[in-house]
């Protein structure tokens, strides 16, 4: 893959030249700036406290509590930057130290409240959608919460992530099975439609989870999952090659095996 060869390089050069012949409209610079300025005028600067408009008050309270928990547990993480000061906006601002680059940060609970609340909502929506298809429901989901209660402490985001990864693995296994069992064209078309819808739901949650703090291995796993979900979200009956591309990506990235390893599901909960 890394050795693209001279012909491939020539093709890239040809492509570059050809695409640049395709016209790109002139940037509507001033019109866009006016729209951006107008939108920003109606916003509270930086604080981002409008997160509560996106979630119900009840979920917001839960999310805030979750965020506080995450903050407490992760506060020992290596944030070795110099001490913070509070600026005129009430923001914490990094000062002093070897680096001259100022870093303005929101308080952590507020900063993570919205993503986590969104994740809670999105997982709920995703599970609801799966139930709509007559598939696995929360009650049948491997109980990571039960796992947490058996002496293996798990962060809320970690539980959500594992549940998400497990759900993804189950569906991907079914996708591969469908494509390998000599399914009829109608079955494949129905499967493609369902998987594309499912992938779109999962992508939002995946992206949200990726914004939470986690180790690199898990982040890479989510990134690779997002890659596959992106391909699956575009599955259509007009382009049967796309199914093959998805299977190739799954195989190349060993995604199902890695998902199994990261979120073993029922076996681990026993």
């Amino acid at each position: 893959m890394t050795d693209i060869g001279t012909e491939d390089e020539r093709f890239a050069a040809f492509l570059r030249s050809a695409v640049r012949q395709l016209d790109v409209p002139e940037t509507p610079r001033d019109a866009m700036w006016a729209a951006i300025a107008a939108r920003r005028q109606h916003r509270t600067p930086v604080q981002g406290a409008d997160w509560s408009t996106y979630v119900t008050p009840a979920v917001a309270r839960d999310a805030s509590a979750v965020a506080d928990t995450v903050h407490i547990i992760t506060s020992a993480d290596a944030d070795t930057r110099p001490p913070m000061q509070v600026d005129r906006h009430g923001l914490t601002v990094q000062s002093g130290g070897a680096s001259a680059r100022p870093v303005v940060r929101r308080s952590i609970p507020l900063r993570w409240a919205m993503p986590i609340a969104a994740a809670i909502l999105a997982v709920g929506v995703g599970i609801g959608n799966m139930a709509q298809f007559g598939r696995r429901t929360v009650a049948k989901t491997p109980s990571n919460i039960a796992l947490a209660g058996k002496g293996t402490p798990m962060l809320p985001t970690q539980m959500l992530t594992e549940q998400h990864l497990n759900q993804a693995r189950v569906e991907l296994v079914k996708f591969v099975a469908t494509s390998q069992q000599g399914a009829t064209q109608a079955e494949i078309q129905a499967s493609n439609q369902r998987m594309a819808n499912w992938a779109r739901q999962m992508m939002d949650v995946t992206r949200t989870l990726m914004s939470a703090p986690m180790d690199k291995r898990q982040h890479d796993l989510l990134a690779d999952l997002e890659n596959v979900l992106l391909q699956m979200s575009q599955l259509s009956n007009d382009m049967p090659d796309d199914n093959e591309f998805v299977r190739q990506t799954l195989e190349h990235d060993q995604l199902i095996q890695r998902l199994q390893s990261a979120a073993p599901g029922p076996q681990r909960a026993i």
Partner: protein
Amino acid sequence: MNAAVRPADELGLVNRVLAGDPAAEREFYDAHVDGIYRLAYRVTGDAELARDFTQEAFVRAFDRLDQWRGEAAVSTWLRRVAMSVVLNGLERTKTRAARETPLEDIDGEATTAETDTDAESLELKERLSAAIDALPVSQRSVVMMHDIEGFTHQEIAESLGITVSSSKVRLFRARAQLRLALSDFAEEWTP
């Protein structure tokens, strides 16, 4: 990628934006908007969508500029924000298949093409545009960023939040599809 702001000045400009300097905000916007708009247009193929996504990208970027950690150039960070907006926006609007290219305008001129070269060039544009349209957006975004905009795989990986290997895989597949679609023009890149 961004000739308007040198790296040494980038930090100062970001600091001024973070301090709430309106002139700095406009300067930051002017320095990056062409690249972001071009990228959005080439991925979406739609001027209206490109405009909407570019606006959204800058609104989001200004809101989150404090999250730029300095590991990568701010232009790379900004492109990542923009690509996130574009990809999510395409998912929402579900219009990625409905690309409107300037070729519609060119169609009217096709009858007036007087030379073989003009006709061939027009044919190439049409085929290329159709081939790019046919790519999944995940591959289209990578091939545009790598082969057209000159991003490295590392930069693409950072921008799209994927691994370097995923970026390479997507590029490989995109090129394979494009080569197949443009095989009639193979003499352009084969010895």
